[in-house]
């Protein structure tokens, strides 16, 4: 386990290479991930298979260790950055091959809230997990959310608030969506330090996400359910 010899990625068989990419993602090694993706492409792997089995698989481990308090934000951001390196190669190929998308999200902090570090972390980790993210920034009135939903047609709407005084505004957004008959078109995820699950339910969100890792897991779960429902 502790041998210090250089591992030559191209000499590993597929299974070993994927395992190595899990480790390289864990360590945030962007160049190695890019190299791994290119090798798998040369070996004829479908872009979608590389995305789900090598990259998303590796990020799932990172997410689990973040959730369990073993990794912290700096390591997770480095991992997400490495993942993005791989995604940059895969993105055009995924579009060409008509592969299913991971999903997309519009995210922003609610009106009155200027605290954006949590939202930024969620954006980076969602992108790291292969989602397309449209970040509409801070201090968003309900109109901004609705416009962005109309324009980008995402799977998910994400709202963030750090202040106890601003979190009730999430309900305003959801209520407006209900009034306009659009609520069920989207998965609504909410997050922010003062929120909890009870609050998420009370305002009619699909789920409250405790941190960025939970947001990614929850997003994956809900998008899978949505796609299943559409195919049924």
């Amino acid at each position: 386990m502790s041998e210090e010899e250089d591992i030559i990625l191209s000499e590993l068989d597929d299974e070993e290479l994927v395992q190595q990419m899990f480790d390289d993602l864990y360590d945030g090694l962007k160049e190695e991930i890019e190299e791994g993706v290119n090798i798998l492409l040369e070996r004829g792997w479908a872009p979608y298979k590389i995305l789900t089995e090598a990259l998303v698989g590796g990020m799932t481990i990172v997410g689990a260790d973040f959730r369990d308090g073993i990794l912290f934000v700096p390591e997770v951001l480095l991992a997400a950055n490495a993942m993005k390196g791989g995604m940059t190669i895969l993105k055009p190929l995924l579009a060409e091959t008509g592969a299913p998308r991971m999903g997309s999200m519009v995210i922003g902090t609610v009106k009155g809230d200027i605290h954006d570090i949590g939202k930024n972390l969620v954006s980076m980790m969602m992108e790291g997990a292969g989602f397309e993210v449209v970040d509409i920034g801070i201090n968003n009135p309900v109109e901004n959310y609705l416009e962005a939903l109309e324009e980008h047609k995402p799977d998910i709407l994400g709202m963030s608030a750090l202040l106890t005084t601003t979190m009730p505004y999430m309900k305003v957004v959801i209520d407006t969506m209900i009034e306009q008959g659009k609520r069920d078109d989207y998965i609504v995820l909410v997050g922010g330090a003062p929120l909890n699950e009870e609050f998420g339910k009370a305002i009619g969100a699909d789920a409250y996400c405790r941190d960025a890792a939970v947001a990614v897991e929850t997003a994956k779960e809900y998008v899978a359910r949505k796609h299943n429902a559409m195919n049924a």
Partner: protein
Amino acid sequence: MSNSFLELLESREVLLADGATGTNLFNMGLQSGDAPELWNTDEPEKIKALYKGSVDAGSDLFLTNSFGGTAARLKLHDAQGRVRELNRVAAELGREVADKSERKIAVAGSVGPTGEIMQPVGELSHALAVEMFHEQADALKEGGVDVLWLETISAPEEFAAAAEAFKLADMPWCGTMSFDTAGRTMMGVTSADLAKLVEDYDVPPLAFGANCGTGASDILRTVLGFAAQGTERPIISKGNAGIPKYVDGHIHYDGTPELMGEYAVLARDSGAKIIGGCCGTMPDHLRKMREALDSRPRGDRPTLEQIVEVLGPFTSANDGTEEGSDAGSERRGRRGRRRS
């Protein structure tokens, strides 16, 4: 040079700091989304009332209304060109209130995080962070604060940048981090880490500690963590008045003034010298804290069990300072690291 903060720190056993800034200003009509710092010039009477609320409740020191006073934060309100003015006025108003009091009151210049993630994981460079903190520090100094007060930081890189800036401004400082993620800061810093970290700066802080975070119980565990490192440096504890709850469409902090009184006594017994509140802490809470600190004799350092008994459960099972916790990141069987 006479300095109220240094005199208080040397002459008193325990100092009562202030409570919340945001919670109080919202009660005075600040609209969420607006920058509190703009009120330094737009509503100076209200800012003085905020400061006076702490002083009248018995605080020995209070923080200026300049938490979001770096160019990085003011930029969000298109006020990045007003760093000097807004911070200077925040300090001048504070000086005015403090100097009118019959008691000796120290004015601490609040400096909050830039809100940006620093390199290598983020975009903000060390040099730019130092520059922004330096600009704010100079303005607070010009306005007459006794000490600079860095708070709610989560990244060691940002703490170090501020320390460097405060040295450039030639000002004494105190600094606290926010331990809100399983007993660590968002960036993974433990209480033990911070106690060691502060000794490494060219000009270490006069006092260091924790603010905000989660509940009162958690911050006391953090204080015990600092004390366990055997630090000689005064410890700061500024905890929230309980945890916010959503009740019938309103937000309510569940920490009563009585509970904050208990928190203050336990914080002192845990080893904190500077004790205050953070979010949700109103003058009523501060009064009970003052009363409790003045009337209750110092007790033994509480155990974690005693803290839970009085203030309620912790939000996480541990806080990263227990033995063997550093081995955590090697949980999975690892393959050989390449190109090492």
